[in-house]
């Protein structure tokens, strides 16, 4: 039955729009709140205006900050778009604008990469494709027509995407450090021992084990417990408890709250219909119609490719030799959340052979503390900063410049060890997706 689920999945089944409309509103409101929070914390300037140098993604170097006031305008547009999503006003354009502006901002500097930002980007992308504004929205009100039934796939793709996020986050935890040594939680939890009420428990090792095991179990199974009607309510209470706990313990911003409201979509049509009926009692229920988008095979193949990519991306690390946590080749965009405590240190030496001159450059002259911290543990960023130094000093001296680093890193408190080959001139190393053989192998 499971095996022929995909072929027999009918794109023309319909579902009541209520779950999707709830999701639309919840997501839009959360995004608006996130933008206001980000803005009022002064992070627009701190992350996207003040830095002298940014770490763009390979192939996306053309994406650059708009500076001041450009970035504020971009965030304002993003806020308007989030509101548009929540209200279902000019919905498709709002979703497109939100997706593009949000993704653009995230691509400016990989320093700020967070799995939850990636999550927001892809949910925003999926929202472009679904008719979430057909009812309970400004658009429906403008058209004076409430279409209460939407293709079922528009709800299912979001459920599937959420499930993948949890499941892969759980899968990533199935490794010895996490399960057998309760790392990195054994390092992180004691540092939060000043947390009110439960703080004193965090110094105990068994707490770290309990959290690790429970976390892995939770991530792997919560989508299934949410899907199954009989366990749904208790599962959702667990979702609330779990995410509020992580919010209290870690600096993870809005993510817990976003997940708490997003997972409401697992609830039944009835549940959501009752919710909407309280707000708009005058919108009467109607008879389901067949979806007009009957069996669009383009859409079908698109989603097959999309979800195949979603499933394959987290495994791309296997194409690279070496320890994933050390080289971080294939680490991002794989739902590896709260998985390791990694700290590094990098000392840059600029060498100008023609002038027989070498000198050390302190990264903090050019990087913010957060940029430097992130760079210290991520080889691709060390290379990017080396190239920045190369270009800077080559243009200043008009001579060929070599860049060497002395660097150390530690993962999960296992002790610092040499990270990047100190004898390799990073100025001459290429960026890209090829294996970085100048990262020293991780040795015991």
């Amino acid at each position, binding site marked *: 039955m499971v095996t022929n689920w995909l072929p027999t999945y009918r794109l023309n089944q319909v579902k009541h729009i209520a779950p999707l409309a709830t999701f639309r509103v919840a997501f839009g409101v959360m995004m608006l709140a996130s933008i206001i929070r980000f803005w009022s914390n002064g992070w627009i300037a701190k992350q996207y205006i003040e830095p002298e140098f940014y770490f763009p993604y390979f192939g996306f170097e053309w994406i650059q900050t708009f500076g001041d006031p450009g970035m504020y305008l971009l965030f304002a547009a993003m806020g308007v778009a989030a509101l548009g999503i929540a209200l279902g006003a000019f919905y498709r354009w709002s979703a497109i604008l939100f997706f593009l502006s949000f993704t653009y901002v995230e691509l400016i500097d990989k320093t700020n*990469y967070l799995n939850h930002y990636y999550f927001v980007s892809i949910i925003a992308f999926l929202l472009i494709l679904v008719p979430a504004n057909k009812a309970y929205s400004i658009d429906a009100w403008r058209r004076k027509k409430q279409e209460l039934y939407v293709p079922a796939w528009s709800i299912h793709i979001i459920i599937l995407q959420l499930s993948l996020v949890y499941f892969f986050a759980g899968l990533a935890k199935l490794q010895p450090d996490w399960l*057998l040594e*309760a790392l990195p939680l054994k390092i992180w939890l004691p*540092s939060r021992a000043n947390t009110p009420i439960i703080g004193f428990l965090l110094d105990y090792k068994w707490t770290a084990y309990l959290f690790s095991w429970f976390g892995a179990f939770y991530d792997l199974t919560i989508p299934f417990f949410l899907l199954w009607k009989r366990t749904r309510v208790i599962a959702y209470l667990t979702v609330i408890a779990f995410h509020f706990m992580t919010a209290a313990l870690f600096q993870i911003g809005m*993510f817990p709250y976003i997940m708490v409201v997003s997972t409401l979509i697992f609830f039944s049509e009835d549940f959501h219909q009752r919710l909407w009926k309280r707000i708009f009692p005058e919108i009467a229920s109607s008879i389901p119609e067949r979806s007009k988008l009957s069996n669009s095979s383009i859409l079908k193949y698109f989603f097959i490719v999309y979800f195949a990519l979603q499933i394959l991306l987290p495994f791309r690390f296997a194409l690279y030799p070496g320890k994933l946590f050390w080289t971080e080749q294939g680490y991002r965009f794989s739902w590896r959340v709260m998985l*390791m405590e990694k700290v590094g240190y990098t000392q840059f030496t600029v060498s100008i052979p023609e002038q027989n001159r070498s000198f050390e450059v302190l990264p903090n002259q050019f990087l913010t503390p957060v940029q430097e*911290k992130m760079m210290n543990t991520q080889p691709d960023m060390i290379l990017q900063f080396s190239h920045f130094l190369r270009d800077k000093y080559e243009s200043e001296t008009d001579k060929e410049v070599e860049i060497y680093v002395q660097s150390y*890193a*530690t993962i999960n408190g296992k*002790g610092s060890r040499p990270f990047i080959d100190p004898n390799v001139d990073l100025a001459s190393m290429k960026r890209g997706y090829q294996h970085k053989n100048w990262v020293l192998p991780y040795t015991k």
Partner: protein
Amino acid sequence: MKSLKFSFFILVLFTCFTACDPESGSEKVDFDREAFLINMADNVIEPSIEDFASKAEGLSVATNSFNINLSLETLNVLRSELKATWLSYQHLSFVHVGPVSNVNLRDRVNIFPTNTEIIDENIASQNYVLGAASNVAAKGFPALDYLLFGTANSDEEILAYFGDPELGNHRLQYLSDVVEDIQATSTIMVEGWGDYRSTFIGNTGTDVGSATSLLVNEYNFQFDIRIKNAKIGFPSGGNPRTGGVSSPENVEGYFSGWSGDLAEKAVQASIEVFKGEHFDSSEDGLGLDDYLTALDAKTRDEVDLSTAIINQKMMALEEMEKIEAPYSEVASTEGGQLVAVYNELQAVIPLIKVDMTSAMSVSITFQDNDGD
């Protein structure tokens, strides 16, 4: 049925807690963070500020005596008061938190090499504001080092420099102004400490702005940038890759030749602060070392991290003690000795900047983070 499954799950978990981690004996991190912060506050930082203030007071008194009576005797007293204050600074600069950081102690009193040209110009023009950014390298201990040792070749000539009928008073005035600036700094720190103390001991977390986070980050900065780089690295030609181009004039205490004493004192102070040693009695209190031990922090070779840090610093001190001459002389003749010191100090850096910060999990930002 469900509750049965859940009990089974819990059972499996507890079996694992008892079975999976047999070698680590301690079941919890047994460390009184508040007691640690109270020790650092009351037995390390406050007495260090008080000591600096009393030395600065001595420096001020000696400056007045020198002003009233220019003699070899008052000059030598003044010089020794300068050295005492400068040595005291080496300890205080490792606890650059609260009022110490508010007055920006490091940059306010110890930017070297000093800029003798600006000092000469200031004296000539008599028109200067020591607090101005342009004068950052024209004040503090390095400026006094120049005025009291570098303005002429012999003690007699230095006395003559200050006794000059035309410019002597301007020079004495500049000397007094620099000393007064140092003393004013110490007064602000003494006055500010009382209010800050409760803030300091009140936040036992490791977030940005917490006492532990500030202590560790400032400690590491002082050791890496102001000790390893500034005192040893630059004058000796920096790291091995800089090709041994030395610049002896960049040492601390260039004119007095106190570079070795000051640098050794700094490394010693870094050990004392690390161990939480009581400033007045050298009694071993709760320090960063005890915190690391409680956290069971180990190096790559399974050595206790706190032991490794102290041992590595002792090795650096050993190399330093081998050097008799001022570092400026060493740097201009056989830089190798300083490079040896540099290498030992450099070996401390990963231990404190990588292993220690990781073990304590200190933050540097309020920004969101999902640990990847």
